[in-house]
């Protein structure tokens, strides 16, 4: 089975070389093939071919093939960089690193390395090393603080997934097919036609199908499997809730604040200050508001409206809604800040032209303001996603601690619960790898959509 994978890599390697080079030489095809095989072989050999031993399942093989494909792909990308350097067609690395064209200090070769060494040492020791250790830990069963560990191959991963390997292949392929289908339709339809409207709707459904496919791939639990499907669902609901609330609310308030002439900076300060509030404090403040015995929310609902609100920590919907509200409130200030800055760049001439054409307020907003803001919207989407993935931890820890029945236990909360509270480092690390994959997917999507950008999020 391992050999089969390597043979496929040996065939696909030259194919990659053929696609990315003009008329490559026979030697390059050979190198491409060899590098693809080497890249594919690294991980299975490093893991002692464990996924292909006796007693392993189809899902184990599948994960191993996935790793092999990833290894081969990375190796081929690196090879292509070398080819480009040899051909002199590499993208201008001086332009990339922002180096000045003329002059530069002419001192010992070690001077720039000395300047960079503190940054590099810390990034390597405290980011690259733990990143690699996360991957190795994810293939082990090991207890927090215990020196012993057992290699368990992919079992920390397979227990999070459904057990049928065919379904596990089919679901993502279906989602990918849906996306390419929608793209194809979009490229074939002229703007303003019914066909384009249909293609737009199909695009939305294709994107949704990715979420559905992932949902179907995670195990619902039972039979020794870990019920990861609910964790995935909670994460999706809470993440989308926070991002939607924070961004739509942020844009609405910024659009409102932008209109005023006098007192503009006073309003701005009064609207954006929650940026400085921590997720932990946001949790404490909303913990107070929603407290079932002492909080004002329950009191007002009861005495003013006669509604008996259930305890939010015992009601799945209320628990998730309260987390979304608290986190959305906290991120609102950040979004208002950036949307206010973005609104300054909207072309007034265009707006005036639209006014003369008799466009309504809503039309002006949809046709001119919103498209002009799309770079900011995109930037905020990524930072808000990161916030909703990670920073929400503190808010949840103060408000619900994952209750009721794990309904507010999102991916990062589950990682700490499993890895630290249960002391199960290996299983926690496997879940970390999944979250890592999600972050990388968002980043790749960001780079593809917008080119290179500087992030201002945190670290």
């Amino acid at each position, binding site marked *: 089975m391992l050999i089969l994978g390597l043979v496929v890599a040996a065939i696909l390697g030259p194919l990659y070389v053929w696609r990315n080079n003009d008329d490559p030489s026979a030697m390059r095809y050979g190198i491409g093939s060899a590098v693809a095989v080497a890249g594919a072989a690294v991980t299975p050999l490093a893991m002692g071919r464990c996924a292909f031993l006796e007693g392993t399942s189809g899902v184990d093989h599948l994960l191993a093939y996935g790793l092999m494909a990833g290894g081969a792909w990375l190796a081929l990308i690196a090879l292509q960089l070398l080819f480009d350097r040899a051909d002199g067609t590499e993208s201008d690395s001086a332009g990339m690193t922002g*180096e000045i064209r003329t002059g530069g*200090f002419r001192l010992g070769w070690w001077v720039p390395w000395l*300047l960079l060494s503190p940054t590099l040492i810390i990034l390597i020791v405290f980011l690259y090393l733990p990143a690699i250790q996360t991957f190795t830990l994810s293939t082990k069963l090991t207890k927090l603080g215990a020196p012993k560990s057992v290699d368990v191959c992919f079992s920390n991963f397979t227990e999070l997934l459904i057990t049928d390997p065919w379904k596990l292949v089919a679901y993502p392929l279906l989602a990918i097919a849906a996306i390419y289908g929608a793209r194809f339709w979009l490229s074939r339809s002229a703007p303003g036609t019914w066909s384009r409207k249909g293609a737009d709707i199909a695009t939305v459904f294709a994107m949704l199908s990715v979420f559905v496919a992932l949902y179907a791939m995670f195990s619902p639990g039972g039979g020794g499997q870990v019920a990861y499907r609910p964790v995935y669902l909670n994460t999706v609901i809470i993440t989308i809730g926070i991002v939607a609330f924070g961004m739509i609310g942020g844009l609405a308030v910024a659009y409102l604040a932008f209109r005023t002439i006098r007192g503009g900076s006073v309003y701005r300060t009064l609207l954006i200050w929650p940026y400085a509030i921590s997720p932990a404090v946001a949790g404490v*403040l909303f913990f107070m508001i929603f407290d079932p015995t002492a909080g004002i929310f329950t009191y007002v609902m009861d005495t003013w409206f006669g509604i008996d609100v259930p305890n939010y920590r015992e009601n799945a919907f209320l628990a998730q809604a309260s987390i979304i509200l608290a986190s959305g409130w906290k991120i609102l200030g950040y979004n208002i800040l950036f949307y206010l*800055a973005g609104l*300054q760049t909207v072309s007034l001439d265009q707006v005036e032209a639209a006014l003369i054409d008799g466009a309504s307020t809503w039309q002006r907003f949809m046709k001119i303001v919103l498209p002009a803001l799309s770079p900011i919207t995109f930037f905020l989407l990524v930072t808000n996603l990161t916030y909703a993935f990670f920073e929400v931890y*503190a808010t949840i820890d103060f408000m619900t601690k994952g209750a009721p029945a794990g309904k507010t236990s999102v991916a990062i909360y589950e990682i700490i619960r499993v890895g630290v509270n249960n002391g199960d480092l290996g299983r926690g690390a496997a879940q970390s790898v999944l979250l890592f994959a999600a*972050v990388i997917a968002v980043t790749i999507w960001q780079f593809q959509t917008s080119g290179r950008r500087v992030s201002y999020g945190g670290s």
Partner: protein
Amino acid sequence: MSGLTPGVKRHTLFRGRTWPYHLALTATAIVIAFPLLYAALIATQTNTEIFSFQFTPGSALASNFDAVWNGRDFAGAMWNSTVQTFLVTIGKTVLSLLAGLAFVYFKFRGKWIVFFLVLVTLMMPTEVMILAMFRLVSGFGWQDTMAAIVVPFLASATGAFLFRQHFANLPSELLEASQIDGASPVQFLTKVLIPLSWNVIAALFVIQFVYTWNMFLWPSLIIRDETKQVSQVALQTLTNIDGALTYGPLMLAAIIASIPPAIVFLLMQKPFMSGFAIGQQK
């Protein structure tokens, strides 16, 4: 903020009366402020007053403060947060300046590899590797030390790239002039670059100050000794005083723990915004 466009012209975007907007904005500002205002009210009350839903300031502000500041030594936690935040913020700024200097004003072999190595860390949030980091840093014997909550955060890809971009946009004649004067790289940095970079430094300072001060997950794992704990995590211990949930001290502590980042953010709003404007051009 409307310095670039005359107010009159800006106004044509939204014709009509302005007072409804002022009204709507004031209402929005109050809604946004509500959680904090409510917490400020609770912070002055005893549990009895809270349960009777009294909407006027209570009688317990002084005793709540005493319970928080002295009873639970929240002062110590605030001090720990202050030390941590200043060490991280200053260290990060210095390291980022040095990295930006090396990227822009030096030619050396292997630069693109270093650049790539730093760039990739933008998609490596600490949180996804937190378990491995916890094991690693515990292995260093750094549990319950200041080093554990400072050293891992000293390097910053964001900061290095922010300065790289800023330096690259400065005129290259600056370097020629100081080379004629025989200035060393460090002199060039301190005498020429830093005075031209205050906006970017301020923007980075605000981002890093707020980020570091508000850190929660990592200190909650690696610091278990209450006297070494930072303010955000120390709030947890206040949920329970004398075996019962006392809301007043908790709210007061939450407000106290928010004051330093709020002050930094409000005081440095202007340079923060203009530093961002520099970062946004590309």
